[in-house]
């Protein structure tokens, strides 16, 4: 029998503000050991209106209950395509909490934080080895900021060469961040259609001397390796452009292929995807960027360097694009990623890639007969089905919601945009054959339900904390905060 989500006691919980009781406290502050003084009264605010007043127990119970309404990788299978929801190892969490990492101030003199700088330096070297780039910045706060940093470096390089180029080519399968990041650098976006993979001809048709760069995701969001990539890079380079790679899907390539070796000039990593750091319910991410030699002078400041066995933060870099945020990056996320690399080793990283690809292909093999697969080329770490084989007016959204009743987090849906009703499944390497079999059984059962009992899909989910939510009203009449009525 196919397992479904079971029953359990789901506890309701009001908002913090609704639970608040005047005079209740959840803190203890050490008594004042200096004379009590107050600022001038004209500067002082009234009490913060409607701010919560709760005991420690209230707060603990509140967030514990909220947590039970969530679904995480630790709860179960989370095949969210393009997001690489692999297991988040606990040793990483332990390491990030070492007092010597958690309690260090960013303005401490460099000589007094050599361990932190050494860790960053080592991580840079390791990411360089995985990606094939000779230089790296760890500063970007997330993948999207990494894209921004990379595109800024591309523009700064062109301008340093006396070139004013205005356009960036982006395939239609790209993440939305790509065009948004290019626009933030003042570029006009030229969208190019791809037929599964990007062809050299398609790029040649739009490539001219006003194109600063091509942004490409490899493997792309259909899970396909861009097989013309070398020729495409050469073409772009011949016309004086650079090639940016979105490294969101690097989990498919570790130890197999290195973007820096095949003509890519800049690439960001998503440490929260490939390198197992937690997604945290939306962040913080971490988006290091690797670059080829000629872009190294443009890296954001500061850069971690090693000089006579002393690790330093280097600021004196006249060609740098500048600073992207305060301090040096999401350090505690960097600790987690480094911990992962230490635990996996070079062979382990390659094995992770192999098993991620094996898992995705296994899902494809199990579902291909029942779900429509628009792109038949050999896919890597993820597989994208369309909704075209679903019966009785059932759609991708209905399948996704029904999967919740079976106890799974749904795949990414309606992305990439080039697939009709896309159902984008990325299992990652940390799921077992047994888990994947159960998931495939559930999806096959749902396809059958679409034929025989479509209302089960239309009504789903029925086993979650809430039923389908009215998103249209939420957007039309936005209620974005609690307020006292």
């Amino acid at each position, binding site marked *: 029998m196919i397992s479904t989500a079971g029953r359990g006691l789901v506890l309701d919980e009001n908002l913090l503000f609704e639970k608040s009781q005047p005079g209740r406290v*959840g803190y203890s502050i050490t008594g004042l050991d200096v004379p009590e003084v107050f600022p001038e009264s004209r500067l002082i605010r009234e009490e913060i209106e409607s701010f919560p007043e709760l005991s420690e127990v209230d707060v603990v119970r509140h967030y514990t209950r909220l947590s039970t309404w969530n679904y995480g990788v630790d709860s179960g299978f989370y095949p969210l395509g393009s997001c690489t929801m692999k297991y988040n190892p606990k040793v990483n969490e332990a390491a990030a909490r070492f007092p010597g990492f958690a309690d260090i101030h960013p303005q401490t003199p460099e000589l007094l934080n050599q361990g932190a700088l050494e860790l960053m330096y080592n991580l840079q070297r390791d990411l360089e080895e995985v990606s094939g780039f000779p230089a790296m910045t760890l500063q970007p706060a997330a993948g999207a900021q990494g894209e921004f940093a990379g595109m800024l470096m591309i523009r700064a390089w062109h301008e340093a060469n006396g070139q004013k180029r205005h356009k960036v080519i982006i395939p239609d399968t790209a993440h939305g961040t790509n065009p948004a990041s290019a626009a933030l650098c003042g570029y006009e976006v030229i969208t190019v259609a791809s037929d599964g993979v990007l062809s050299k001809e398609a790029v040649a048709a739009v490539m001219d001397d006003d194109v600063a760069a091509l942004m490409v995701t490899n493997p792309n969001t259909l899970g396909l390796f861009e097989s013309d990539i070398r020729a495409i890079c050469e073409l772009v380079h011949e016309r004086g452009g650079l090639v940016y790679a979105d490294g969101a899907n690097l989990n498919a390539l570790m130890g197999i292929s290195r973007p820096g070796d095949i003509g890519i000039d800049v690439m960001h990593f998503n440490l929260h995807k490939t390198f197992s750091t937690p997604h945290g319910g939306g962040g913080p991410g971490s988006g290091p960027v690797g670059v080829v030699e000629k872009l190294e002078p443009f890296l954001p400041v500061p850069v971690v360097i090693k000089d006579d066995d002393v690790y330093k933060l280097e600021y004196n870099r006249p060609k740098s694009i500048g600073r992207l945020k*305060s301090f040096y990056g999401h350090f505690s996320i960097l600790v987690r990623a480094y911990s992962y690399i230490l635990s996996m080793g070079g062979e382990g990283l390659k094995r992770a890639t192999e098993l991620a690809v094996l898992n995705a292909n296994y899902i494809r093999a199990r579902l291909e007969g029942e779900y429509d697969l628009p792109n038949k080329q050999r896919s890597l770490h993820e597989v994208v089905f369309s909704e075209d084989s679903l019966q009785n007016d059932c759609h991708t959204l209905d399948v996704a919601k029904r999967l919740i009743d079976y106890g799974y987090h749904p795949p990414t849906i309606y992305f990439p945009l080039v697939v009709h009703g896309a159902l984008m499944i990325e299992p990652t390497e940390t799921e077992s054959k047994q888990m994947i079999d159960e998931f495939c059984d559930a999806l096959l059962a749902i396809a059958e339900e679409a034929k025989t009992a479509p209302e089960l899909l239309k009504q789903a989910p029925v086993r979650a904390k809430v039923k389908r939510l009215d998103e249209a009203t939420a957007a039309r009449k936005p209620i974005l905060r609690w307020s006292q009525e």
Partner: protein
Amino acid sequence: MRYLPHTEVDVQQMLAQIGVSNIDELFSGVPEDCRLKRPLDLPAAKSEAETLGFLRGLSEQNTKTSDWDSFLGGGAYNHFIPSVIDQLVSRSEFYTAYTPYQPEISQGTLQAIFEFQTLICQLTGMDVANASMYDGASACAEAVLLTIRAGKKRNKVLLSQALPPQYRETVATYCRYLQVNLVDVPLQDGVTDQAALKELLDDQVASVVVGYPNYFGQIEDLAAISELTHASGSRLVAAVAEPLALALYKSPGDLGADVVVGEGQSFGVPLSYGGPGIGFFAVRKKDMRVLPGRLVGETIDQDGQRGFVLTLATREQHIRREKATSNICSNQGMCILMVSIYLALHGKQGLRQLAQVNYAKATYAKEKIAQLDGFAVPFSGESFNEFVITCSESVASLKTRLEQQGILAGISLGRDYSGLEDGLLICVTEQNSREQIDRLVVALAGGEA
């Protein structure tokens, strides 16, 4: 490897189902000339014990604020973190979840964000807050971009020189290729010079950006600055690097700010060498639809039950692509929880009391140091938990001298401010006992503490 569950039998069965004979065949889509022909040159895998041992070794080469007398602030603040926070954020239903794209199984994250948005509105005195940005500096840069978008062809932005230097640098990076004219507003007695501001304001100015408190810990006269700014039809952006001050001082919203951004690290987020922090971003209702970042809204489900969803997504990159209000695609989910739990625990009374403790301790230290020979407090105005001192001794030698006594005395101002080569920025929080402060004063004066 313990994270990889496949047995050899599993692998063989899966390959058979796929119809290939080995894993290499699965990579047939990767052309030969794109292959790496050697193993990755990385160390062999370590056991969990080895990994922890190695990382602990690195961590022990660092200087912990818990072991030293630290008076460092400057955008990252050493506040006490209640034990509750790490216990709760360690619930992996929170931290191993993704962005709440499937609201039915993400109500925990969504309600927590909705509460966070509310807490930020209450604290800043604003109408609408988003689900957070990377940090205070990048939030400040995004605020500048918002005012350009909303500013109807105005392309000049006035940045107070007392805005934290890292914020100013980040704004410059974000505006690098966007034809925004960034102009510095000079200082007078450690705060934004209002006469100079008045001179600089014209009908091309989209916004004025001021720190509150500013980099020197000074409380700017936001009401007056707001009046000047609005008189020229510009927006006022208040950037708050130390939000604990907002529990004590009038809120920027109350004083007329149009956008309030800042850094939430003070509220329960570990220092972690400067990251991750959490940027907050709040606006008036009129700017709701040009906000960057995620927003959570209240709605109901099919049964009429209250629930929460991501909303107004048509502003965002996954829908609008190059026309989005920002390229941001994450929020600091884990840090939102830390901040919200911290604020919920401290609440109305505790946050105020804590701010007063910070103010009293910093004032005590400031007055003591002002009395020392060879030291001065150059700015006369109100300061919160940070203040500037100047010294006749070289700042570098002074800092080294104090480091030898286990004291991190403060941040040199010379690199960012010409004219303040003799300046040191000192931060005092509830973590600094009177004993520590007294030791600092003795050490500054040249004594052995």
